């Protein structure tokens, strides 16, 4: 019965490895949350970091991450959706389309550090945007566009083709069909994909080291003039994000509680990613139900 025995051993190995993966994730989440959550307080989330003393917070970094995310999405969404629509609706299956598809694939495989270096060279130096929120947002756009293109293309391809046919037979222009008939149906999938992409943007650090910078000016949260250097919403100021902060604290942090700060910040980061994940699922399901109205 050696075949049976082998079968059992193999099954055992497969199950054991699968359990190991689950254990690794649980262990990592557990470690981060146990070590980090105890450090999270309102004060930690809102106060300014300290360089040599203990008790610093992550307030500006958290704000920077969110601000950068919003700015990136504002730039990425129209561009990514437009390119995705092109791929799904306008591209004829020729050589040009194959080339564009290759471009999207290559662009999504570029290491983020290389995209960051490109941003340093072109956006930060040549365009003279400096280390700024805007430079960071533009680089994250490059990083995020291929994902949005894929999400949008897939969402449009999944719309039943009868919808498009009905629009064509009614004598609608192709663009009108896209915007008024296909887009609402594709929207839930696009929103779900966008939220997941947002989670990725939120955690990205390598591309931002040399574009959004590793420092933050002292922010004055009463100053909402976008031109003022200390204004939180000035897009031309440098902005160290939460992820970059974790990296910096780990590699060159000298505050006595650097490890706790890193743990706390990691916990915040992981929680945000978890929230993005859950939100994506929930919103996707909700919108799907709303649009199909199956109650």
């Amino acid at each position, binding site marked *: 019965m050696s*075949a049976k025995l*082998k*079968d059992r051993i*193999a*099954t055992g*190995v*497969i*199950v054991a*490895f*699968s359990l190991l*993966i*689950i254990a*690794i994730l649980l262990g*990592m989440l557990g470690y*981060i949350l146990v070590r980090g959550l105890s450090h999270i307080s309102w004060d930690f989330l809102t106060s300014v970091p300290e360089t040599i003393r203990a008790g610093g917070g992550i307030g500006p970094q958290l704000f920077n991450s969110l601000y950068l995310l919003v700015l990136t999405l504002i730039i990425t969404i*129209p*561009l*990514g959706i*437009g*390119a995705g*629509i*092109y791929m799904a609706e*306008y591209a004829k299956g020729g050589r040009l389309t194959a080339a*564009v598809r*290759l*471009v999207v*694939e*290559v662009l999504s*495989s*570029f*290491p*983020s*550090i*290389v*995209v960051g*270096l*490109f941003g340093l*060279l072109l956006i930060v*130096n040549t365009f003279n945007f400096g280390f700024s929120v805007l430079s960071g947002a533009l680089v994250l756009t*490059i990083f995020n*566009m291929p994902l949005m293109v894929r999400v949008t293309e897939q969402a449009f391809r999944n719309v039943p083709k009868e919808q498009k046919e009905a629009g064509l037979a009614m*004598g609608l*222009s192709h*663009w009108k069909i896209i915007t008024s008939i296909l887009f609402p149906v594709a929207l839930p999938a696009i929103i779900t994909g966008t939220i997941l992409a947002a989670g990725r943007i939120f*955690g990205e*650090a*390598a591309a931002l*080291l*040399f574009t959004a910078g590793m420092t933050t000016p002292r922010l004055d949260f009463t100053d909402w003039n976008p031109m003022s250097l200390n204004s939180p919403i000035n897009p031309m100021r440098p902005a160290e994000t939460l992820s970059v902060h*974790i*990296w910096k604290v*780990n*590699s060159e942090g000298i505050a006595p509680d650097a490890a706790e700060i890193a*743990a706390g910040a*990691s916990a915040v*980061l*992981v929680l945000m*990613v*978890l929230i993005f*994940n859950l939100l994506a699922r929930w919103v996707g399901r909700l919108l799907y139900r709303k649009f199909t109205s199956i109650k």
Partner: protein
Amino acid sequence: MKAKQETPLLFRKHRAEEWIGRIYTTFCVTLLIVVIFSIVYFVASKGVSTFAVNGISLSEFLFGTEWLPDNNQFGALPFIFGSFITSLLAAVIASPLSVCAALFMTEIMPSWGKKVLQPVVELLAGIPSVVYGFIGLSVLVPFLRDIFPGQGIGVAAGSLVLSIMILPTITSIATDALGSLPRNLKEASYGLGATRWQTIAGVVLPTVMPSVLTGVVLGMARAFGEALAVQMVIGNAPHIPRSLFESASTLTSVITLNMSNTVMGSAQNNALWSMALILLFMTFVFVFVVRLLERRAKI
């Protein structure tokens, strides 16, 4: 036709709409193409200047083992070696785990696998790389330090962290491949009285192998380009390590650490750009290999 003469306005309207749509979407796609060509052009023009402007020979850069910027020696082999060895080891560690996870989700326990393992894998994919680096630094490195010689940092720590990071990539591709297998393929094997493992090893795995390899290459590509998580745990010593537990460097880690400490246009700075060019070049190689494998997977 009568309707046409009556509604010239409508006639113009739908033409105008069509143009708006075409111009807008074509603009977006063109932007993508412009971006990719600019990336290649700018990084390449900078990366080439090491050889063209600073007069360092290509063979010295690629095969030289001495990285002594103050001495004007720019051998990048330790970093190239570091990148290849960490991503290869990461793939070696992650592949069996990923294939097992994929088999678990499709062959052994589909319902439980979809409900538990799938979300776990998706979450692993979503965790930011700095968090992997942080955990690597605060859990894995001390652990390795306790049971192996050395400081815990090094190629082993880097590869292990990377292997967890690329696990979701390989798993999801392998799962898709397994899920799309025709049912009758397995049934034929079971019909001959084969056990589940005989079916998996004899029929299922050989069929999906090209797809699994695609996943492995994509995972390696990700590992090769990953910067911060590796940089945090590998030690960053600029030489070829003699053991897995000795401090080492990768292309990405040396760029990360030195880009902001060097002056733009200096020989050392240009050498970093040449390394970025290698990363870029390897991306194209990985995409090319993936394409080859995908073509084989279709047949």
